[in-house]
């Protein structure tokens, strides 16, 4: 409580210089952007899977963890076999994370998801089972303890654009990774033949099949793409957090909230939702406590969804 009052007072300028307040404002703004990048990275893959295919993938968090473990594995390989490569292994790890998670996603679609397209709520149960299996597999292979990848030097520390302002380099990296990935996904969905096929299949599966689109393959590739993006997100997360077998579960609800809040099927909606939720949480965290911020944000999202169940962005069509 005292902390709260102190903070309000100091923001009123009592005892703090303008420079300091400005510095904090910039850093706090960046903290919000950072959280935005995290939310968006998490939600992007899910937005593709849930939004485009209406599949509820409860194992999404595990695909992220998978990408993170891939990074840890590569970092370990570099450390033990080729310390010279440690500086630049990270971009390679990102690509590897994409393909590992994507390949597993491909198999998952073939083995499980394709049988459940007509029953979206059942995909929830099946993928929950899948997430249990994945978690235990991670535990068996990598051990129950928290691990983290060794970061290359250039990803650590902060840079100071001017006095009193520290911008975390891993945050900048996270943000740029997030923007590039989002750009690639949007470009892929809206400006390529593949993307056209995906959208056509989503809109009208039978028709798409009739005009010669291999809908089975399109579904499989879409699912794999979503999982691959999750893998990249997991890789990016190793710069800010830790990895444990059950880490994926921490993110899954947040992720679904972002996608649902944005409006299923709309990438733009997902971006907006990630931005809104992240900024709200970041600002509330600064003025309230971390716990209350979380409760408020969850509450606000639920209330807004009650008022606007279709999410932020939704197309209005004849039902």
């Amino acid at each position: 409580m005292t902390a709260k009052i102190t903070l309000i007072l100091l923001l009123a300028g009592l005892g703090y210089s303008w420079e300091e307040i400005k510095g904090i404002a910039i850093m706090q703004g960046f903290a919000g952007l950072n959280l935005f990048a995290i939310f968006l990275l998490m939600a992007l893959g899910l937005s593709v899977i849930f939004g485009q295919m209406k599949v509820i993938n409860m194992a999404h968090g595990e695909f992220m963890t998978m990408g993170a473990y891939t990074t840890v594995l590569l970092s370990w390989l570099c450390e033990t076999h080729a310390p010279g490569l440690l500086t630049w292994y990270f971009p390679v790890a990102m690509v590897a994370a994409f393909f590992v998670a994507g390949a597993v996603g491909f198999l998952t679609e073939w083995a499980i998801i394709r049988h459940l397209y007509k029953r979206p709520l059942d995909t929830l149960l099946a993928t929950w089972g899948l997430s249990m299996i994945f978690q235990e597999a991670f535990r068996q292979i990598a051990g129950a303890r928290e691990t983290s990848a060794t970061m290359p030097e250039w990803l650590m520390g902060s840079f100071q654009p001017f006095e009193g302002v520290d911008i975390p380099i891993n945050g900048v990296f996270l943000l740029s990774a997030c923007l590039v990935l989002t750009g690639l996904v949007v470009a892929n969905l809206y400006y390529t033949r593949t993307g056209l096929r995906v959208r056509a299949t989503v809109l009208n599966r039978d028709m798409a099949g009739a005009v010669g689109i291999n809908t089975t393959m399109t579904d499989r590739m879409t699912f794999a793409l979503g999982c691959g993006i999750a893998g990249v997100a997991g890789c990016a997360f190793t710069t800010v957090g830790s990895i444990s077998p059950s880490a994926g579960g921490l993110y899954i609800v947040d992720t679904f909230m972002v996608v649902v809040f944005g409006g299923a099927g709309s990438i733009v909606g997902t971006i907006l939702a990630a931005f809104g939720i992240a900024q709200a949480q970041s600002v509330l965290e600064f003025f309230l406590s971390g716990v209350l911020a979380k409760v408020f944000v969850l509450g606000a999202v639920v209330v807004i969804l009650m008022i606007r169940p279709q999410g932020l962005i939704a197309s209005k069509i004849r039902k």
Partner: protein
Amino acid sequence: MNSFYRSFLGGRSGTVGLVVLSLLLLVVLPLSIDAFRLNMMGKYLSLAFVAIALVMCWGYGGIMSLGQGLFWGLGGYCMAAFLKLEAAANIAKEAGTDQIQALTTVGIPDFMDWNQITELPWFWYPFKSFPLTLALMIVIPTVIAYIVGVAMFKRRVGGVYFAIITQALCWAMEILFVTRQGWTGGINGITDLRTLLGWDIRTPDAQMTIYFLTCIGIIGCILFGRWLLNTKFGRLLLAVRDMEDRVRFSGYDVANIKTMVFCIAAAMSSIGGAFFVLNVGFMSPKLVTIEPSIYMVIFCAVGGRMSLIGAVYGTLIVSFGRTFFSEEFPALWYFLMGSVFILVTMVFPEGLAGAVNRFGPPLWNKIARLWRKKPPAAPAEEVKP
């Protein structure tokens, strides 16, 4: 009598199923397993209330709630609050025990004292009265379910969205319960519950009695569920699930129907939570959160989402499997359970009950044919709503 037979017992196969379940719960289990395992069964059965509620809400009404743990937890917390106040009042009489040393304010729950709360918060007062506690145990979850239901169903939030929103609510609730630890006991929950109206619930005899009470509660819920699903309301639920628009264009307010079943499910789950506290002796926010809520849906799915009795078997089998495997092969448990969920959703969407209904009668006929000359054996276990 005839209508009672039809609507409560569900005809011949329903009666057989219910009798088999009752025999199993009330006779076979108490005779064959020891007090410790029986108490575990009681604990599992308190989860079966939620599974039964989900059969009505999800199997029939098509409303998948991933936040049922919220209501279950509310029931548990109400009961725990009452027991805790009784324990706190009694502790004053046991001066000289270890606990008394810990308390600066005697007569309020110990965790409040640890959090510098010296006076009972106002909303704890109703839990000093047992009848009021019982009433609140039903009223609080029902009111919350009503608010959520009206807000969502009027706006036609359904399916996946409803599932995710209930999940978020459940999570928000857990965070609140954890963070207001002076009011709720925080992450430790409300522990060290001893007596119910002066009756020591920790003795083996009391545990046995509570087990039987839980069984009776379960059977009561099944009968209630049978009756409800046999009314026009039950058929409306199916209608809403399959053809929501048709129901609406038959002049029904679909939102009201959904809210109703959601409220009933909430109240029933809450009763289960209260039984849990009696069986286990404490309440914890860990039980209110997302994972147990998903487990509850899974109990229901494994048992058969359309079968009230199946839900009970589903709960017992999954919970027992969980305990057994975590005792013997901790690692295997997750692999096995994960595979079971995938298998059940893919191959047996109707769960155990569906499988029994599909394979039971042919098998029974075969057995009957083989034993034609001999007197009939006990009927095959049939699981029907």
